[in-house]
């Protein structure tokens, strides 16, 4: 493994009841890198995120995951988190009775009020207005989303997997989230960011394109967008939102084996 490689997924296959959600994923995230993960709905991005975190039901059928040269394939969620890997869920959980300040402090080795305040400010939430609030239904979905991102930022992990950090966030605040991702990288956190937005992908150093449970292209964000526009869209036009599904008559197999859809 290269010295600057933080995370490596090697030929990762994951089965869920009734479906193979990851089909031979190969992915590398380097230290200090912001890596965007792109792909159509249902292509397996969230499954990849949950698999990385070791979430229940996402055990590997084949392959392995290396994190800082260590094989973490068999480790549970807590062990992975203790090694410095964490996840901001696409739809954050609600916690009855748990205060925002306490929630942010959970991931910090030595909780500090100043760091909690800094994390809230980083997601454009006023600390005094939010620290004493409860992470439950009294907060809007967008507020919970930002608090989830603040919790990950406060934790200072080695790798933060952000599942659509921009979804549910009003467009006016998108720049705050982009700035947050950059702050994470500056603070030493590598970021694997799932997104559908071009603006968000522009923040990334590298991008990978997922399709039908596999990574089919990796490069700069511009290169990957170009690849998608040139090679994938024609099939999308013909087949709708699942260009590489079974109805593609075997096209999917060629995508995986040849890295091409034509």
């Amino acid at each position, binding site marked *: 493994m290269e010295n600057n490689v933080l995370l490596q997924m090697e030929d990762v296959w994951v089965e869920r009841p009734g479906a193979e959600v990851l089909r031979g994923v190969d992915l590398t995230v380097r230290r200090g890198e912001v890596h965007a993960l792109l792909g159509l709905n249902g292509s397996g991005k969230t499954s990849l995120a949950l698999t990385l975190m070791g979430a229940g039901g996402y055990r590997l059928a084949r392959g392995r995951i290396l994190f800082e040269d260590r094989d973490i394939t068999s480790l549970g*969620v807590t062990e*992975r*988190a203790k090694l410095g890997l964490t996840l901001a869920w696409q739809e954050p959980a609600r916690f009855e*009775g748990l205060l925002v300040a306490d929630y942010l402090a959970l991931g910090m080795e030595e909780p500090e009020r100043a760091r909690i305040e800094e994390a809230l400010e980083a997601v454009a939430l006023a600390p005094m207005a939010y620290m004493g609030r409860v992470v439950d239904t009294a907060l809007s979905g967008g507020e919970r989303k930002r608090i989830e991102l603040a919790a990950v930022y406060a*934790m200072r992990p080695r790798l933060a997997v952000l599942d659509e950090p921009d979804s549910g966030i009003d467009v006016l605040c998108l720049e705050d989230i982009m700035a947050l991702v950059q702050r994470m990288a500056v603070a030493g956190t590598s970021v694997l960011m799932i997104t559908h937005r071009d603006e968000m992908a522009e923040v990334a150093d590298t991008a990978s394109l997922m399709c039908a449970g596999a990574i089919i292209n990796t490069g700069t964000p511009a290169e990957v967008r170009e690849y998608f526009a040139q090679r994938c869209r024609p099939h999308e036009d013909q087949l709708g939102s699942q260009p590489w599904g079974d109805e593609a008559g075997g096209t999917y197999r060629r995508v995986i084996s040849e890295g091409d859809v034509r």
Partner: protein
Amino acid sequence: MSEHAPTGPKSVLQQRDPAWAREFEAMMQAYEQAGGRSDVLRVPRIASAVISGNRVLAANSTEGVSIEAEELENGVRALITVAPDTKVDYPVHLCFGVIPKEGLQEIVSEFEIGEGAEVGFLAHCTFPNAVDVKHVMDAKIHVGKNATMRYSEGHYHGDMGGVEVLPTTRAQVDEGGWLETEFDLVHGRVGRLAIDFEVDVAAGGVVELVTKANGSAEDEIGVNEIVRLNGEGARGLTKTRVAVRDEAVSEIYTTAEGNAPGAVGHMDCTEIVRGAAVACNVPTVVVRDDRARVTHEAAIGSVNRKELETLMARGLDEDEAVDIIIRGMLG
């Protein structure tokens, strides 16, 4: 009447008897264990009552808030009246307890909240040494027209599990009235708890009943709540949060009746089960008017997986994460 009974309840500041002082001090220690602040009971402008076993150790009425207490053979009868249109700035503090290991305490209480009045109650019930203690509450509540009553009751039962708590309440909320109650039994063992609460709500009235309990070992938790939304636009909510582990058992029965146009009721129950514990929830929905609406939701069983994994992704182990989720739910 007990031989120690005062001729009439006195405020804390009027007491001089050393025996009284010892018992009062013991109650105050227990009161603080139950989450109360004993210094508040010495503040003249705050209405309060301290009842130990069948003794009324202190009772302090304030302007617009009258507390009359009478000692019975095994308990106390109390009449608490809030005059119409009285806005009570500080919650009325009530402290009930049994300090010895064994005993029976029967509290017969009546709350009369006058029209347009607003008042809060903070009650703490403490049985820190209980091995065989029975605490029976028989309460009547009348919330007058456009009046508001908020009643919060916290319990501390020690670690022996030797307490039976049997509260029965019959309440009436008049037109435009508002009644909120919260019952917390989340520290120490439960022992046996059997809540029986029935309330009738008139037009435009609101009732919210919140119950939280944390059972372990062989604790038994029983809740039976009936909310009858009888008047037009009446609203009612029952919210139950229970955690049981070991061999503990929880049975929650809630009924909401929508009996008038625009009546809206909802029942919300969450019970987290660990180990060999057993929990059940039986909601009953009755609607007698086609313009009323009653709903219910329940989540019984293990801790929500997503909540658990979110906390574990911050580095907490599973047990720590479960404790935080339960503490939050019962907090």
